[in-house]
Every structure is written in C-alpha cells, then in structure tokens.
C-alpha cells in the first residue's frame, strides 16, 4: 500500500516536471497559492465557507472516478482498497478542513471531514447511463460535452443571477454573468487527442475559424437570456453589460485558440500565466489572441493540410 502512495508521489513529481516546474518548488508554491487564495476569498466573499465546502467535496469526489476504482479493486484486497480510498479522501480533504478550522468554522470543518468519509463508498463518478439532452449536438464536441459535465454550474449561475436581479444587486449579477462565459471558456481547457484533429479535412486556418464560430454561436445561446435580463433589469448599465459581454466573448475566443497553442501538449505554464494576465487585464487580449492564433496555426500545421 505504501508503494501505491509512493507511485502517486512520483506521478505528481513527473507531472510538475512536464510542466517545466521544479517539482519541490512547485509543491511549496501550490501550497502557498492555496493558502493565499483561500484567505483572499474568505476575506472578500460573505458566507464563503459554504462554497469552500462545496469545492472540497468536488475535489474529494475526483478520487471516486469509476475507472481508477475498478482498477484499484482489481489489484488490491478489499481491506487494502478501502484503506487506500480512506487515505486518499482524507489527503484531499485535509487542506480544506485545516483552513476551515483555522478560520474558526469548526462545524463546517467537521462536516467536510464527514463528507469525505461518507463518499468513500461512492465510486461511480464519471460514468452514467443517463444521457443528458444537449442542445449543442449539431456541432460536437466541446459544447455538447461541456454542457453535460457542467450543467449544474450553469443552473447555479442562472439561479444566482436571478436572485441578484430580484434583490437588485448589479455587481453580483455581472459577476455571475462573467462566470457563465468563463464556464464556456473552460469547455476548451483540455486539448483533444491528435486523432480528433487529424480527422478534419481542413487547413489550420479554416479549422480554427470553424471552432471559433461554433464557440461564439453556442456561447451566445447560453449567455443571451442572461444578457437580456441584465439589460432589462439594469438599463442604466447597458454600456457596462455590453462591454462585459464583449470581454467575455474574447475570453471564450482565447480559450479556443489557447488550446492549440502548444498542441499536442497541453497549454504550457507560461501560456497559462499570459492567459491569466489577459483575464485580469482584458486589453492585453488584443495582443494575446493574435499571438496564440499564430502559434496554434503553426502547431496544427503538423496534422492539418
């Protein structure tokens, strides 16, 4: 069993090395960023402890993915399998539990801990026979898959926006609106296997343009009702709403082309940092998007003629 955790440690080190990061520095920095970010979010957002608990639960549930659990069950005895799952869940939950405890949310910390133990017996994450109907089936695959994976986030965002509209909180409504477009952007976060690019009988420019048109069209489908509601409830802020819409669509475009900027590898660390700067400082996107577009066409040239 110790061998299993040693192997996971080696895998983590290798992943960080592949990202071009010194693994030990990477671990220290990750811990620091986690603490600082947690602290900042607790400071800025009221009742953040409940969202924090939800995040912890989502993280812990990742260990319950069906494929890896079938593999573990197959190679370990029942007792050792349960020990591994217990240790994994506790390891994943512990950073959140510690922060909650440190912040004085003792009950939340205890609930998070109990949750991480309760989901020990839930190992069917990721496989479902029930097919969620997707309105994006005509142009697969990012939006149809993303919609099925994150429909709950979209429902949550719509619910938060409606509450914000009813109580007249413009800032919360606009925050939810941006979050919606960021969710659309996240549909393009992972690069697909080469085969799924290779099948296209298009040159890189046409391929990217088609992807961008699809992304824009489907983002519009998802965000238009919110945009109309926002303008309807806050007509005096129409310019801000339209500016945020434009900015959000640029985020989605960035997501599409950044996916291929280091293809077939995932987006590099430097590219991720550049994207983060673009998200915080949108005018930078005007430089970043053409740059990523050029990089993407160069990378796609190897697979598309």
């Amino acid at each position: 069993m110790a061998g299993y955790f040693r192997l996971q440690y080696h895998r983590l080190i290798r992943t960080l090395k592949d990202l071009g990061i010194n693994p030990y520095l990477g671990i220290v920095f990750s811990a620091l960023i986690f603490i600082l970010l947690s602290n900042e979010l607790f400071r800025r957002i009221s009742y953040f402890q409940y969202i924090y608990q939800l995040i912890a639960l989502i993280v812990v549930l990742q260990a319950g993915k069906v494929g890896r659990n079938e593999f573990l069950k197959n190679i370990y005895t029942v007792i050792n399998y349960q020990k591994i799952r217990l240790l994994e869940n506790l390891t994943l939950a512990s950073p959140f539990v510690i922060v909650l405890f440190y912040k004085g949310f003792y009950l939340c910390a205890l609930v998070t801990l109990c949750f991480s133990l309760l989901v020990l017996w839930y190992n069917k994450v990721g496989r479902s026979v029930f097919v969620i109907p997707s309105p994006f089936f005509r142009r697969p695959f990012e939006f149809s898959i993303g919609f099925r994976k994150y429909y709950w986030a979209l429902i949550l965002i719509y619910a938060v926006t409606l509450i914000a509209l009813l109580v007249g909180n413009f800032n919360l409504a606009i925050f939810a609106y941006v979050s919606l477009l960021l969710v659309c952007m996240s549909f393009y976060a992972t690069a697909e296997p080469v085969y799924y690019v290779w099948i296209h009988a298009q040159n890189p420019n046409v391929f990217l343009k088609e992807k961008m048109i699809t992304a824009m069209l489907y983002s519009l489908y998802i965000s238009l009702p919110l945009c109309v509601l926002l303008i309807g409830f806050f007509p005096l802020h129409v310019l801000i709403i339209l500016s945020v819409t434009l900015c959000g669509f640029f985020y989605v475009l960035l997501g599409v082309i950044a996916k291929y900027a280091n293809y077939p590898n995932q987006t590099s660390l430097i590219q991720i940092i550049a994207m983060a700067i673009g998200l915080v400082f949108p005018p930078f996107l005007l430089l970043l998007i053409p740059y990523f577009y050029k990089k993407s066409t160069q990378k796609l040239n190897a697979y598309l003629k």
Partner: protein
Amino acid sequence: MINIQSLCKSYGKHKVLYNINLIFKKGEVNGIVGENGAGKSTLFKCMAGLESFEGSIAYTGNILKNVTGYLPTELFFFSKMTGYEYLQLLCNARDIKEKNLYTSNIFDLPLNEYAENYSTGMKKKLALTGLLIQKNEVFILDEPFNGVDIHSNIIIQEIILKLKELKKIVVMSSHIFSTLNQSCDHLHYLKDGTIKSSVIKGEFELIENEMKGSSIGNKLVELMD
C-alpha cells in the same frame, strides 16, 4: 495508388521502420502482419499523416490524409459524447451533410447512448461506421477484428470486400490468418521495422509458417514456481 518509397521512422536513436517500399493499388486489399512491436501501427500512422517520417508517400489524387479513414487499434471516445454525436463530428470534419445518421447505423448501435459505455466491439463498430460515412478513398484498419463478435466479424469482412469492389484502397493488419486469407490480395510481413517478405493470395501460408515463433519452454514454469 499509394506509393511508399524508402520510408524510415525513428524515435530518437531507436529505429522503428527502415527502408519501407510498398505499393497499394485501388481495388486491392493489403494485409500487414508482424509480431507485436514490429512497427505496423507506426507504419499506419505515417501513412495517415499522424507521424512525421523520412522518405515519401505519394498518392494519386487528393491530399491523402483528407480522404483516409484510419481505424486505430486503441480507440478513444470522449466522455459524455453519444454515438450519434461521434458520427456527427466525423461528418462535420469532412464537411459531409448527412441529414439522418440513424440510416447509416449498419451495426444497429444504440446511437443515443454515451459511446464511452459501449463494449469494446461496439466501440470498434462505431469507429468503423464513422469511417464509412466519411466516404473515404483509403481505409487503414489496424486490427479491425479485435474484440468483435463472430457476427460482426463476418459483417466487417463483407464491408472490406465491398470496399474492394468500390475500388477503394484497403490496408489492414490482423493476427488472425483466416480473416486475412478471406480479405487480402497481398500480404506483407513486417519484422524488426523492415518488410521481410511480400506474397500474393494463395501464398499466405509461407508467412504464417515463418511467423510461428519458438515456444516459451520452461519460462512459464519458472515464472509460476
């Protein structure tokens, strides 16, 4: 016609393919056989344009990769994607305006279910259906019979013969000589990265005999002891 000349492929210092010269004509089915790790899949990837290589692959007609249907040994399907959406994706990729993909469902697959939940054989059938819908000119089939049941095995053989009739170029690999005997016109034996021999239909037994390796002898007993 596909004309492969002096094809070489290396991964760093490790040579996988060396001086491959092959010709694949329209309306012919070519089989590539070889032990595990001989380089069959690498050769197929080079042909498909998925791997860079030295040498040349010439094709008379369109850009080869844009009219090639490649069935890899290990299939990958996205999670939360239905069989129908997979076929739609393949159609979109080649700008094929197929109105009703259900009519193309020759294997009676449950197209409204997630492809990731399909059995191994069903996944293979879905991938194969996708290649057929694309109306490709060249078919590269890496182990098309792996994991499929007897009935589907027969259907795949029928499909290959139909493709031959339609003057398509079919290149396939298999470890099952009976299927190669029924489907192929030519058989090429790939060993250690080079074509060791090529034979025509009726002479496949020569390669089969050549391929029969030495037994594992006492190694199994020693391992289990």
